[in-house]
């Protein structure tokens, strides 16, 4: 049985209440941290653990914490990014809904480590019922003395605020989130200055994903070295993967990083294989914004070795033959799915969610969507494929925030790996626009 850090007690009945959570060993980490450790020691443990940001970028959490500026007389803030809106990702939702106290425990520890006396959980607006669950849990924790003034007699005060977002994907970008939290339009800020220097209300701020913050409870209890012992290489610990698509058992799974992709898809413990009678065609490994991979490259690296579920292995080969772990939105496609239609769908999402602040993303996402719409509906031209590649190239890296990259990568990668399928749509518009028509040509199905 694989180690479970976040979801060990998730199936215990009543775990969303304080008493049951406490009985399962909850809030011991808060006691340990506040009574026996200094904030610096907590930061040190998290650094040792080597947790990489679980929101998608994979930036080491301990390093992010150590960048936090600490000027005198200025408050510092911790903001939990629970604005999970990436298509294919639903792990934070699962965690907050089922075991809200784990997040709250993590928030207390992280806020203590960073010296924040007021911390925010910015929850996606669509998840109103989760907000109610969190607020109830916070009220319970406050009643038991784990939040508020002088927590457990340690002299440390913490107020936790749950803030619903307006339902914009862009507010998952950390600086747009801060703008939104300040009550402004959710436009990403130009960096530098980074939030660690000037964040919420121009004060030093750390923004972390729900899953990253939730791991701190286990790290404090068991030590950073124990956490670093799990996983493979620089991908330490466990990761929640939201598996969806044409698999037998979709759902959220906690895996130790380093599990082979093949095992994750086919083992009964996890996805349970491709649905019966069908073959594996393509994989989006980390949410809609990462490059899509054909089945053969998803399972093996370019050099023939098995591809593993880790930050390094998934990005092996760069974008030519690799992808990214991203936020862990694992979408599996079988041979009945049309890559062109899927790419158009992703593109439509980014067009809809672009904030419209900087020109390449504002105009480029709409352009890509329109061209893909045309190809999908049988009005494409042969030069459209190169046009898409060129537009994607001109958006990528030239925007304020990573949404431009996120919009460009799926399009560029789909064309890179499935160019024939795009070509088939363009040259056989009659056939391709039939309901349910899918390219059956030369594909590396597994």
């Amino acid at each position: 049985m694989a180690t479970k850090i976040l979801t060990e007690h998730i199936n215990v009945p009543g775990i969303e209440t304080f008493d049951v959570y406490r009985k399962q060993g909850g809030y011991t980490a808060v006691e340990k941290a506040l009574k026996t450790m200094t904030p610096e020691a907590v930061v040190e443990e998290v650094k040792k653990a080597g947790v990489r940001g679980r929101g998608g970028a994979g930036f080491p959490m301990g390093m992010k914490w150590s960048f936090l500026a600490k000027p005198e007389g200025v408050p510092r803030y911790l903001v939990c990014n629970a604005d999970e809106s990436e298509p294919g990702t639903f792990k934070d939702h699962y965690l907050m809904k089922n075991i809200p106290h784990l997040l709250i425990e993590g928030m207390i520890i992280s806020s203590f480590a960073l010296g924040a006396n007021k911390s925010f959980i910015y929850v996606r607006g669509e998840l109103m019922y989760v907000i109610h669950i969190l607020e109830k849990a916070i009220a319970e924790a406050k009643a038991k003395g784990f939040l508020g003034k002088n927590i457990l007699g340690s002299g440390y005060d913490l107020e936790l605020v749950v803030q619903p977002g307006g339902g914009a994907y862009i507010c998952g970008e950390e600086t747009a989130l801060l703008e939104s939290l300040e009550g402004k339009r959710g436009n990403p800020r130009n960096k530098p200055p980074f939030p660690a220097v000037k964040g919420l209300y121009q004060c030093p701020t750390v923004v972390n994903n729900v899953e990253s913050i939730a791991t701190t409870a286990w790290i404090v209890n068991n030590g950073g070295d124990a956490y670093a012992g799990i996983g493979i290489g620089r991908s330490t610990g466990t990761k929640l993967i939201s598996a969806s698509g044409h698999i037998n058992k979709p759902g959220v799974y906690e895996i130790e990083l380093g599990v082979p992709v093949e095992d994750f898809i086919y083992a009964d413990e996890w996805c349970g294989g491709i649905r019966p009678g069908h073959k594996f065609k393509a994989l989006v490994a980390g949410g809609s914004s990462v490059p899509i991979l054909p089945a053969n490259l998803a399972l093996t690296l370019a050099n023939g070795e098995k591809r593993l579920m880790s930050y390094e292995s998934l990005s092996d080969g760069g974008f030519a033959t690799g992808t990214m772990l991203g936020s862990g939105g694992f979408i599996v496609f079988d041979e009945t799915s049309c890559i062109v239609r899927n790419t158009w769908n992703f593109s439509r999402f980014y067009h809809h969610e672009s904030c419209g602040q900087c020109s390449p993303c504002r105009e480029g996402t709409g352009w890509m969507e329109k061209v893909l719409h045309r190809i999908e509906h049988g009005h494409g031209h042969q030069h459209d494929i190169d046009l898409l590649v060129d537009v994607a190239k001109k958006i990528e890296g030239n925007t304020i925030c990573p949404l431009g990259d996120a919009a460009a990568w799926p399009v560029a990668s789909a064309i890179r790996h499935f160019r024939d399928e795009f070509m088939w749509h363009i040259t056989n518009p009659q056939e391709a626009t039939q309901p349910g028509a899918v390219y059956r040509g030369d594909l590396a199905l597994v």
Partner: protein
Amino acid sequence: MEETKPQLLRVTIDGIQVEVEPGTTILQAARKIGPEVAPPAMCYYQPLKGSGGKCRACLVRVAAGSEKDPRPMPKLVASCLTPVQDGMVVENTTNPQVIDARNGVVEFLLLNHPLDCPVCDQAGECDLQNFAFDHGKATTRYEEDRRTFEKNDLGPYIQLHMTRCILCYRCVYTADQITNKRVHGVLNRGDASEISTYIEKAIDNDFSGNVIDVCPVGALTDKTYRFKNRVWFTKPVDAHRDCPTCSGKVTLWYRGDEVIRVTARKNEWSEVTEFICNTCRFETKKTSDWTIEGPTKVSRASVISANKYRADAIKPSFGQRLAAAEYKPIHDERDTTQLSIQQLPPERFAKLPSAES
């Protein structure tokens, strides 16, 4: 006691070195060198705090971060916001990647632009027109319908053409920083974003007219000047008057003896330095109201002066600069003694007319 001067930072932009004070951005350092190396700016506006970073027209490549850390920056950076560091090496017009990105930005900005320059009042003094002239192409790859907007009335003085807008946010910053109350802003998201007042409220403010001057395109124009004339047929004259609300320093635009438009004075980067009030701009249009100072200095390269775009005058050394950056000596390893030119008798050359004669 000797005053301690701040350490000047040395920056190299397109091979030209300049010394600037700490805190200067790359764009400002480039402007210090001159218009040939200054990156175009569609949204950055030096007098407005917080502007910039949105249009991505001023992207440059930082080939070396600083003296201490000479690694190049991984992505192109917005020069209007990136502060310089000592020993920084910036590639602007000499880098094909930058040129390519800029071509992309022009294309993106023109994608949904109506291209109605023939009927647009801004034509001739339009930043987007200049930018497209420098970096754009004559053809488009866009086949879809262009985005349009419902007409929106902003009151008696300001005409809003939302279809022309490039969402630079300059007018928003102007209303925030110059006027005492902002009633307009950006509504909606993505390519549906639009500048508007909430539920068609008129902009009513003493300094509201300044949004017309800061607008880089013809999205915000002067209703009192609409369709009156083309800018290159008018004569700009500097003038001033005693104004109780503003500095009163303006440019009058004459057609014959008639003042047809009043604007604030702009510097060579078409930035207003002293904002003017609505009374000066819209209601004081008689020569007798003003003290004339003399003709406004207009760059020879400007459309206003030349009546047309002059490719030679705008960026004289651009082509050569790019060619020089791209130039690589040919490594010809063939045995030159075998070439026929070597075998020709020297007297054959003597017969050719020499360079001196």
